[in-house]
């Protein structure tokens, strides 16, 4: 949370978040960072690459690395049929795809519903989550995307 965001929070502003599910976790990422959302894409595995990098997908002529969120969060592999969905996000180093279980709605979330990560969240997961937004019916985890990719590509 930086100062401008703090100020906006006081003003009662809200931000759009693209949401997705991984296992029973509900995540959000700033909608402006999301380039597009794709259904399951065929991937080319990269031998010797970090385990969380599941492969490369062809995004209209661009090769994009797909990062397995389950693996990075220390969860078991995706069991369901159909394979994971892709959320393409923009980073300094070009687009990256996050493989998630399913895609949720884009939500307008008031900034003042923010709360820091509870202390009892396991350390390795806590560093990947920037905070929690208290929605009406549930909690939305804010993904710390840069750190997340760093951990995944390690």
């Amino acid at each position, binding site marked *: 949370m930086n100062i401008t965001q703090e100020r906006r929070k006081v003003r009662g502003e809200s931000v759009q978040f693209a949401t997705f599910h991984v296992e029973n976790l509900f995540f959000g990422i700033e909608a402006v960072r999301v380039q597009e959302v794709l259904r399951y894409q*065929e*991937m*080319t*595995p*990269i*031998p*010797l*690459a970090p385990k969380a*990098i599941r*492969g*490369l*997908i*062809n995004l*209209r*002529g*661009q*090769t994009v*690395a797909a990062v397995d969120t389950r693996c990075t969060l220390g969860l078991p592999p995706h069991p369901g049929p159909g394979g994971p969905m892709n959320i393409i996000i923009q980073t300094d*180093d*070009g687009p*990256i795809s996050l493989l998630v279980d399913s895609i949720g709605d884009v939500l307008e979330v008031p900034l003042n519903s923010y709360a820091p990560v509870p202390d009892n969240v396991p350390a390795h997961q806590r560093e990947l989550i920037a905070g929690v937004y208290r929605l009406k019916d549930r909690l939305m985890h804010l993904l710390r995307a840069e750190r997340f*990719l760093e951990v995944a*590509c390690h």
Partner: protein
Amino acid sequence: MELEEEVREFLIECAEGLVHLDQEIVQLEQSPDDKALVASVFRTFHTIKGTCGFFGFMTLSAITHVAENILDQVRSDQRPLNATLTGLLLESVDAIKAIINSIETTATEGPLDYADLRARLEFALHDMALIAAAPLPETTLPCTPTSTTDTVVAAPVPPPAPAAEDTEAHNRAACVDTTIRVDVGLLDKLMNLVGELVLSRNQLLQGTSQQDTSLLRTVQRLNVITSELQEGVLKTRMQPIGVVWNKLPRVIRDLATECGKKIHLEMQGAETELDKTIIEAIKDPLTHVVRNACDHGVETPEARLAAGKPAVGEVLLRAFHEGGHVHIEITDDGRGLDPEKLKLRALAKGLIRQDQAEQMDEREAIQLVFLPGFSTAEQVTSISGRGVGMDVVKTNIEKIGGIVDIANRTGMQGSTVRIKIPLTLAIIPGLIIHAQSAGEEHRFVIPQANLLELVRLEQDAGRTGIEYVHGTPVFRRRGQLLPLTYLNRVLCLEGEEFPTTPVINIVVVQAEERPFGIVVDGIFDTQEIVVKALGRRLKGLTSYLGATIMGDGRVALILDIPGLARLSGMASQGRDTRRLDNTTKKSGEDPQSFLVFSAGNYKRVAVPLALVSRLEQIESSRIEHASGRSVMHYRGQILPLLHLASLLNDQHASESMPDANAQLIVVGEGVRQTGVIVDHIIDIVEESVTFRRRSEHTCLLGSAIVGGSITDILDVAAMLTMASDSTQVTEARTVLVIGEFASCTSMHRSFLEMSGIRVCEAHSFEQALALAEICEPAAALLVSNNMPDNSTRFITVARNGGIALISIADKHTLPSDHFDANFSMNQREELLHFLTTMPVAAGSKQ
């Protein structure tokens, strides 16, 4: 905002003008009478002056104003252009460049006001009478006719001049009209889109093959158009090499003036086109090579005249296309490279050893300039001795897949630097191959640049073609041993360790001028592929160059061959493999291969090649010390090291390694591996040992005649014992290896011995029975499928004597329940484990 846009336009315009200005002024110095050239230079100054005044850049305006006035005098023949004036003009150009740079970055003219330069320019402008008076009288005579005609036609001169200017301006305008500035990023994007279009076309072509003809016709037209479009987009990225060469005349002029040399630069093939990214990449290396040629190559005029050469030195730049590559040659007619001097220097710098220096021929000696930390100039000049040597040139060129080579010109004086670089980095031809792993098929691309040849082994050849030099697969390629690596193993793809298919595909590639073979599961065809970077996050993966998108829309990885070679543990610096063939065949019962090397006072020491698992050349800095021993981190293990020269000389020589590189012979396998540091590898000799004399030395078995000379034979077992921790030494056991053929049994013998097991060989059960009495084996290894004589008696004896029976072959005439254990040929580790851990049977006398 609008103003900013205009300033940027002004900057671009200036930059365009300045590119030519340097070159034109230098040309002008050589041909001062070229009116068109003077006019062109004048015009550039004029344009800059006019526009910068409009923006209020006062310093810039002041400098260009005076420079323009001086040029005006030259243009109107009021004064000749001499070296002083040229120097002054070039200095002004530098000042203008600096100011423009400053405007570009800070939007101001910068802190310098160039008062000194302006004063000198002013002085030169008004001192015209002085300058004109001094040199003119000498040139009056030849000049008079022209000057008179000029004055005579003073009135008509203006009309033709503007006319000439007009046509030229027209030409220029035409030039400007046909070119347009495009962001490279946009071109990259276009390239991507065209790639996608090609893909869609391919899919369309497949889908429409059996449908109606009119659609087919349209698709085919689309096909042609797409191909042309792809070609066209590729061309947009191309630039003539002249773009880089343009600044070289100026560089050479400055250099020549500074060193008091006279150098003429000639350029051939400036129109040769190269990809924009490559142009960028070769800019610095090229400038460096040209600087070198001028600074170190071309001599001073006095020295040249003394050597019977013309005073003016020649530097020739040549570029041309050949075989999908661009060749650039930089030739000078200077003193060339002195191999002896280079050797001395390398010795002095500690880059090579004395014995290495003695063996080098001229070519090898010249290649020394590419070693890091090598600089040939006796005195470091401000021009080319800044620590950035030819090694940096080499690395930079190799980074873009190029090769650089330097040689003295045969039969002439001087030297030539040859650079060979690919046309483009964006699209490369590649061979599509595939590797199989548990049900999955992985496609990879091998860049054609690395490819040497393809070998396909079928049927018998497939089973026997691959041989093992102590566990390392090799292939005999036209009599030379080619190290092999299995692609699926290097990339850790799960699959069969040793494929059982009768067909073996070997892709012979070259990495760092050293060939090796990659065993793949299938070879498809070659294709032009578009290289896409893997991105920063995956930079750590040395095995890939990038990725590409195949015709079916899926991504395939491009293999980085040098990276793959390193990954598969191919020695970083290979020995000259041709030497492996210098086998001296002699009639003997059992020829054996020996590796001959030298260590300290022992000039010829040999070790059976079967006991050598690897030869490595390592940097001495990699040698570390742990609990008083020399060790090295080697393939994820701690490798104990023995300095053989010190051992042989009874610790006489110092343990320290003064040399940058150490030659390492790795013996043994697995945890018992040991590195023996020797001085020099001499040869590999294949022959039967004819004479043996026992040695008193613990490290040596004795002497024998190997390769015609008396040679000491290294005791590998002693080496292993010396290096290993006492806890690791297992109680020596004896194993009887029974097999019909000596080749078969000796193979097992070597690796068992290396693991500290005593071995007896028997070639029949009769012999085995006799040996069982003498050597009291703990186990018997049956390595043959079917032995001619009766095995029953031996088996009874073995059972009674508590000798464990182990089968190594796949099928036996004996039922398998006769054996205590079964192992396949590849299960060496398992076999060793069994042999070392099995309890000593009660009946055994051990």
